[in-house]
């Protein structure tokens, strides 16, 4: 991966100006946009690599969960469901004729930052009990771990699963704020807090790739 051009700047700027990282983040972005008319976009995975990674993760999930009757796949709203749709598609192709439990979970009402900001809820679609099932939680980017914490809380309203595992496309390691780690990882990357990692999907963004936005 190409080295980030401005990696050292935020930390120095925090010391010099006494502003928070978020304020600086905003100022830096405005600065970048002014000069480059755009974000700096660096591709981490292109369309072909992304397809291979999804295929590999689907195989890994099945390798660890041999009985598909007990298996439950759950995509996290809003952006995790594009990823979980792909995993579901791959696994269905590998097990023709078998039906696999697949649901979508919205965690809005379980967030811990509700005091600061309200979010619009998305649809939850879990039409079965999770009692004694092996659940695979699926999300696109794992950053601070707070979304997964909320998702674990939300899951318990649907029964007591035998096991919960986490499948992540991009793991932003070293930026965790809670002790949460993925069981299946597409790609682990190093990034700083001012950067954004975004997964683009054909259904929504007309292109398919994973990129870092500076």
């Amino acid at each position, binding site marked *: 991966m190409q080295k980030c051009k401005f990696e050292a700047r935020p930390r120095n700027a925090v010391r010099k100006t006494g502003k928070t990282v978020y304020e600086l983040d905003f100022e830096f972005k405005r600065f970048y946009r002014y000069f480059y008319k755009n974000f700096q976009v660096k591709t981490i995975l292109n369309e072909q690599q992304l397809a291979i990674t999804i295929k590999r993760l689907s195989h890994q999930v099945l390798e660890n969960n041999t009985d598909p009757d007990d298996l439950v796949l759950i995509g996290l709203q809003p952006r995790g469901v594009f990823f979980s749709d792909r995993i579901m598609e791959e696994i269905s192709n590998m097990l023709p004729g078998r039906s696999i439990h697949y649901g979508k979970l*919205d965690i*809005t*009402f*379980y967030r811990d930052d*509700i*005091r*600061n*900001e*309200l*979010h*619009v*809820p*998305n*649809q*939850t679609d879990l039409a079965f*009990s999770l009692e004694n099932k092996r659940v695979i939680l699926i999300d696109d980017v794992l950053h601070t771990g707070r979304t997964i914490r909320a998702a674990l*809380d*939300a899951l*318990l*309203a*649907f*029964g007591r699963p035998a096991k919960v595992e986490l499948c992540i496309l991009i793991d932003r390691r070293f930026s965790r704020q809670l002790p949460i780690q993925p069981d299946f990882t597409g790609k682990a990357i190093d990034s700083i807090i001012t950067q954004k990692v975004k997964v683009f999907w054909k259904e929504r963004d007309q292109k398919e790739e994973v990129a870092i936005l500076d």
Partner: protein
Amino acid sequence: MSLSTKHLLGIKDLTKEDIQTILQTAEQFKEVLQRPIKKVPSLRDVTIVNLFYENSTRTRISFELAEKRLSADTINFSASGSSVSKGETLLDTVNNILSMKVDMVVMRHSASGAPHFLAKHIPAAIINAGDGVNEHPTQALLDALSIKERLGQLEGVKVAIIGDIMHSRVAQSNIYLLKKMGAEVIVCGPPTLIPKYIREAFGVKVEYNLRKALEWCDVANVLRIQLERQNQVLFSSLREYSLAYGINRRLLDSLNKTITIMHPGPINRGVELDSDVADSKQSLVLQQVENGVAVRMAVLYLLSNRQN
């Protein structure tokens, strides 16, 4: 994301976007109510007082349930059996309750404008659960959700509001909401129970003939005759009212289409609505009550933003 107002005093103050946000959020809360564990921790740190200066069954239970399903702490206050009978004023009562660190007030009062008065004087968020003959916003929102579920949309839907329009806060809130969402509204009832200038004030149609109103509409929202608010004789007897404006099976069967019947409750069976109509598949009465909890959860959730 939040509403354009800090309080929910009436539908009058809401924008179309606010109403859409509330209904959209309520649909998600409806899903929560289908789960084995029907509780979310969203308002874990919020304390809400239910201040009821007037009798209520549905609204009060519905609000209390909504608060509990959101994990809020609740206090119930009713005027009877409190220091109100010793002469304490509304503002004093509320200020005393608020000094015990309460974040939101759900209130019902027999005086129109009581929540608006409180909103000017206290810092907590206020939700109007019915004030006199003015507004009952959560009832209008749950009616809208029920219509949307049954007919798929609100825009272009033809709604007849039938009965005691003059004394009904439900009618006023419903008219505000339906007009904002692009529905067509007709009001129907005896001339003495329809305000004189309602056509000019709200842009609704007026019809004195029940049959004509029913033939025109998709949804009939039937209201209760509010004898407790009528301090003069406005029609000769309930029996006569029932003959002219009561909805019965025979009347509905003689129409050339199936319309949806709604009623905000409590129903006076045999007066405005016959039992066989109220309990039929055409009636949305129990769905309305079910939607009430979801809508009130949405309103409480959206007004709980603790930064402002």
